């Protein structure tokens, strides 16, 4: 240990990777991170639940069944809606934050960090209280006479998207606020002085300049909402099936591990595909 630390002082200004320092975390990852994924991949090539026959059976079963293909599609759709809804609310809030006085900014910072004080499980629980039949939304709607009978918001995609919007919003807001605070105000002022409306200034100046921050936020929101097991199962209920619930069910209820492994790798590819698509979008935007 002393020897390793002794090298550390030099490594900070060194030219080469000090493998002795990288090895402890590297080996931990090899054993507890890379090896499990290798096992997962291996198990997916068993054709039957009892893991006796090798083959592509589990993969074929998953990718030829319309039900499972729809689960993939619904999971992607949920991620897309969550990104769209957090974008729609986070951009205006970030614009207001940028234009506020330092005092107001401190209050807004507290409000923005507030969801982070509560765990994802508690945020999900809060939305049950809000969206339930005797919850806040239904009582308000009935009080205003907008609806006679309580609406069923739990176990609907709309309810789930509303809940995920709050649950994931800090992930979108934090990168957006960071990039907006670095944006050059002169560019905005110049656009306004040259006669562009505020809408035009937003779409032609603010949006392109803050796009890298949005891509960072959208990546986090997409990855997080597509894998939000608790929110999906508790608010979505049994009728809405997404990949995480399918994986859990196949692994712990049905005990079909090869099939669960296929679903799990599909989730992995789905998330990576989403992240790569957003990254490409960023590259195109920069070439523009």
């Amino acid at each position, binding site marked *: 240990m002393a020897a390793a630390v002794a090298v*550390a002082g030099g490594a*900070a200004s060194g030219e080469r990777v000090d493998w002795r320092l990288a090895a402890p975390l590297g080996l931990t990852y090899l054993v507890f991170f890379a090896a499990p994924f290798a*096992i997962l991949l291996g198990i997916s090539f068993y054709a039957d639940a009892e893991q006796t026959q090798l083959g592509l059976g589990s993969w074929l079963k998953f990718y030829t069944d319309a039900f499972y293909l729809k689960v993939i599609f619904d999971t992607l759709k949920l991620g897309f809606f969550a990104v769209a809804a957090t974008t729609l609310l986070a951009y205006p809030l970030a614009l207001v934050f940028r234009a506020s006085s330092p005092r107001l900014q401190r209050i807004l910072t507290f409000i923005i960090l507030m969801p982070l004080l509560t765990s994802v499980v508690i945020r999900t629980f809060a939305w049950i209280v809000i969206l339930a039949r005797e919850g806040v939304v239904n009582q308000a709607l009935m009080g205003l006479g907008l609806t006679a009978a309580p609406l069923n918001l739990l176990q609907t995609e709309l309810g789930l998207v509303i809940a995920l919007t709050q649950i994931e919003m800090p992930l979108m807001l934090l990168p957006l606020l960071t990039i907006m605070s670095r944006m050059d105000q002169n560019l905005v002022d110049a656009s306004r002085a040259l006669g562009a409306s505020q809408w035009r200034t937003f779409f032609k100046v603010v949006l392109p300049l803050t796009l890298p921050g949005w891509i960072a936020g959208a990546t986090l929101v997409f990855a997080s909402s597509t894998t939000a097991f608790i929110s999906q199962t508790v608010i979505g209920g049994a009728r809405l099936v997404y990949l995480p619930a399918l994986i859990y069910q196949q692994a712990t209820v049905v005990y079909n591990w090869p099939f669960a492994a296929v679903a799990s790798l599909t989730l992995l590819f789905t998330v990576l595909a989403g992240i790569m698509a957003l990254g490409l979008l960023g590259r195109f935007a920069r070439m523009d």
Partner: protein
Amino acid sequence: MQRSTFADISYRWVVGLLAGLAILILIAPVAIVIATSFTTSQTLRFPPPGLSLRWYQELFDPVRSAPIHTAAWNSVWVGFVATMLGMVLSVLAALAVARVSRPAARALEAGFLSPLVLPSLSYGLAALMFFSVLGIRPSLNLLIAGHLVVIAPFIFRTTLASLTQLDPTLLEASASLGASRLYAFRRITLPLIAPGIAAGCFLAFVSSMDNVPVSLFLSNARTGMLPIRMWGMMESTLDVRIAAVAGVLILATLILMIVMDRLTGLTKRVSA
């Protein structure tokens, strides 16, 4: 002064309304959970018909809430040990790759950060299969190993950011004055990167306490973890005690956050 056209007025209205909606949607759930935790009612009806501490008494009752207490201590223990181990490993790894421009360093960096982007639910299942293929039975140590992998990147990332900002001339000066490398690390590098390490540890501990995807597969009835226990309570009975747990956790996180903010300027680091 600009003239107010219709376009500008509509812009102000749309931005103002959406920002207001965003603020409402951020505050309301937290406020509602806290209010509900003080209800006198058996149900989660909002607004609560009366205020009392009965659900907090129920929650702190050592007999009736024993499974929740066990799960809470398991979560704290796993989070604490995983964070401490993660801190040692991640700081060493960050020292190895900081300021090195070779492709090998960038590859290692990407590898060490990869658990942040890969879905941890996939990892949770992979870890379950891995340990069962090896024939290792579920225990808190398995949970520590699983959590370590998904929380170490938080510490690695903040430590690396601190090391990148470190002025290399400080180390050159101390070397030219005859300080050994160990002495320079202890007296110069470590004090300067300590706030970054602390901020990373805070994020790592909080995310371990909050972790669902890994605990979902690695914990069982005996090694219950708090978020999984709460999920069970939500799925079955909608016990009002969940609101009281939420109240306690919100208070604990708030205190931890204020302390960390004083120590490290956390709010600045989180957004960086």
